[in-house]
């Protein structure tokens, strides 16, 4: 009955990850230490996915001697020799095993395919943006290190990648005083340098795979917000260094918060309602955090969360291999 014990434990880990994720989505501590929270999100997502696939496959391979991974090889050999049923099992049991195996493998294939597709979509969209920028954008001394696009709406973004680009619109240059523009550029440079885009891609691929899941939509939204907070923090650190050199500069947190407020206030009020409903309050959350920064989590708590994440992943791998 060892394979059933494996399957039960894996299913428990999968359910636990989902429970953990919904608790994490509602928790307030992540805004204190966004990087640690993102690590926990990644661990929950990875462990939950692997455990869900593993639970199905564990029932499907039904092997007493080896673990899930070893059992899968045995089953593949058995299928290759044209034998579907295990020794001495009835047709109903064989059907159950094959159904579970197929379900597990389908889930795995869907998750992989969606991840590959998410990467493909991103790569294609970036290539198009690059081509358009080559034709349309120009440099401007007001925004050093950034490309400028002639459009009245306020937009500032970065195109991550090996040849990364930071882009601002003329509307942004008109909207922001120089110090606030510098804060925005520092925020975008933080994204580019830390390759934050790679963190978000698995979550957006999950969202494509399960568009109706409220939990996944919330996870995606929360991780995206945490990434922005991380870039805010990073921008502040680089700006504080510079502010110390040029004395008398106002605190950069306020510059960044003001820039965010100006962006939000200038935002299109005609945005399609509903499509963006889940994203409501994002700028408000970041502005509040910048103006009244919460204390970061104690080091011991951060270490505990990191250890728990590692333990979670390790336990799933052990369940699968042994």
């Amino acid at each position, binding site marked *: 009955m060892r394979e059933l014990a494996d399957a039960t434990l894996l299913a428990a880990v999968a359910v636990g990850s989902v429970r953990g994720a919904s608790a994490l989505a509602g928790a307030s501590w992540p805004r204190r230490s966004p990087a640690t929270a993102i690590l926990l999100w990644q661990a929950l997502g990875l462990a939950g996915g692997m455990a869900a696939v593993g639970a199905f496959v564990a029932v499907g391979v039904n092997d007493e001697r080896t673990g899930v991974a070893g059992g899968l090889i045995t089953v593949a050999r058995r299928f290759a020799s044209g034998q579907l049923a295990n020794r001495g099992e009835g047709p109903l049991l064989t059907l159950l095993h094959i159904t579970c195996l197929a379900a597990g493998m389908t889930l795995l294939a869907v998750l992989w395919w969606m991840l590959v597709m998410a990467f493909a979509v991103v790569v294609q969209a970036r290539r198009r943006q690059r081509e358009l920028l080559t034709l349309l954008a120009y440099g401007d001394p007001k925004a050093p290190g950034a490309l400028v696009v002639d*459009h009245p*709406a306020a937009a*500032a973004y970065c195109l991550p990648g090996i040849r990364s680009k930071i882009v601002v619109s003329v509307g942004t240059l008109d909207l922001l005083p120089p110090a606030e523009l510098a804060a925005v550029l520092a925020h975008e440079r933080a994204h580019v340098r830390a390759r934050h*885009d790679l963190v978000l891609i698995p979550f957006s691929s999950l969202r494509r795979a399960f568009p109706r899941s409220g939990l996944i939509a919330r996870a995606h939204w929360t991780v995206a917000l945490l990434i922005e907070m991380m870039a805010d923090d990073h921008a502040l650190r680089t700006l504080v260094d510079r502010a110390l050199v040029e004395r008398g500069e106002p605190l950069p947190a306020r510059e960044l918060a003001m820039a965010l407020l100006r*962006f939000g206030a200038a935002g299109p009020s005609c945005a399609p309602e509903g499509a963006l409903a889940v994203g409501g309050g994002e700028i*408000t959350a970041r502005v509040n955090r910048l103006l009244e920064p919460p204390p970061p989590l104690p080091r011991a708590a951060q270490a505990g969360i990191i250890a728990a994440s590692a333990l979670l992943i390790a336990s799933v791998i052990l369940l699968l291999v042994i």
Partner: protein
Amino acid sequence: MEVLWQSDSALTVREVSNGLPQNLAHTTVMTVLDRLAKKSFARRERDGRAWRYRPAATREAYVAELMLTALDQTGDRTAALARFAQSVTGTEAEALRTALARLEGHSSGGDTRNGL
């Protein structure tokens, strides 16, 4: 591309060369136009032995396409680019406008910039 956008009619490679501020080799201009045509930014038509090029869309159309992705107005938040600020709903924009007005009024009243 700028030269093509400014012209009303389709241009040959030589006409584009003449319209450029700097003096580039004929083959260089030809290569660039060829690549623009391959990427569908320019359309070309035969005129005797030469090609004539015209832009596939107006400059404004391309800027609009670029900004549509940049402003995230499709509602599908892709990970292709990292925006400084996400689109806001009407109610949040209203709240932010109020907060902005309050903060700006605050800082012009006295030097409290470091105190917040």
